[in-house]
């Protein structure tokens, strides 16, 4: 089956956008709760920053998948 040419960038975009949207949503929720926790107990700031960074893995995964689509799908 031959590809028309536009499927690859569209596929990569969907993979990256999915990860980015999910990360944004997760970080917004963690950020709101984290802000509340830091206001009451500033000593937990370190843990909150780590928790806030965890959803970044989703967008990194999306980026990796998008790169693989561009590089490997011919």
């Amino acid at each position, binding site marked *: 089956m031959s590809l028309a040419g536009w499927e690859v960038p569209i596929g990569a975009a969907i993979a990256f956008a999915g990860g980015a949207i999910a990360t944004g949503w997760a970080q917004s*929720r963690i950020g709101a*709760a984290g*802000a*509340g*926790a830091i*206001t*009451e107990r500033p000593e937990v700031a370190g843990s909150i920053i780590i928790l806030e960074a965890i959803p970044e893995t989703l967008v990194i995964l999306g980026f990796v998948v998008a790169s693989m689509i561009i590089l490997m799908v011919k």
Partner: protein
Amino acid sequence: MRSCRVNEMDWGYINARMRGMKSRLLNKRALDTLVLQPDLASLIAELEKTPYRDEIIEAKVRYSGVLCVEYALRKNFTRTFQKILKFVREPEAERYIRIFLHRWDVQNIKTILRGKNIHIPAEEIQDCLVPAGELDEATLTELVRQPDVRAVIDLLATWQVVYARPLTESYPTFAKSGDLSLLECALNEFYYADALEQVKPLSYNNGLIRNILALEIDVVNLRTVLRMIRDQVAPGEAKKFLISGGKEFDQEGLDHLITLHSIEEVVEELKTTPYRFLADIPPPAMRTQKISVIEKQLEKFLVQKGVGAFTGDPLSVASVIGYFWAKYNEITNIRIISRCKTADFTVEQLKEELIYV
């Protein structure tokens, strides 16, 4: 959809703050340290090492002894709930929190009416108020300045405060009988009816609030039933003081309870309800018609249910309900400790009086 997401985010923030605030409440160990203090002076010194420090320092300037502790506790309670109202910006959350804070308005109005009814000096009434609700300190001060019960009700009506309506309606009966409990009961009835009306639509949050309010109504009604039976009040008369909207007891159930002849019979009747734990109370307490023991158990049950709300959905009003009850219980416990220290209770006796949750 958009507003729904905003709500969820706000609940996350509110829940985190509530849990942070709860972590600063005194745990069993901290309460035991307070219990072990030999006298009131050392209790006050120990309280200075807790989150009550600022309020205790402020209170020491004006009062000493048990009054100092009482003042600090009132200040702390008021500040805590004013702080919660300040950071809650979401209208739905604010409405739920106000339902809980309104009870302090009711409590303050009752205190003022009681004071005015027995002609207590304005300063003494002012010292007993907890301005944690919507009626702020300036409003309450103005109410306290009024010469009598009628004037207090009139001023509330002039300001269009909602509580003026039940009071105005019940005032003629009160004027005839001089029984202040009629006004107090009208206030209670209005508060619970209004609160239940606000949470009528079906939703998870409304359900939580409705449950805890209905539970409270049951406990208030049970207390009334027990008191009426102890004081041998005629069932027809006693009915006037019962509040509708309870969870376990409907009007028919309450009417039946009120016709029973002794406290033992009421406890026996409650064996098929969630209040079956009352049957474990030692028989001597029942025989002497000492209902304070039963009231203590009911209070404990209510506090445990209230604090238990913390296990509910974190993205709901559950944590606010849980915190409200946990804070209320902490303040009650410290108040008990300070009172018992002035009455020279032993450590064991004092521990029995506390409610640990």
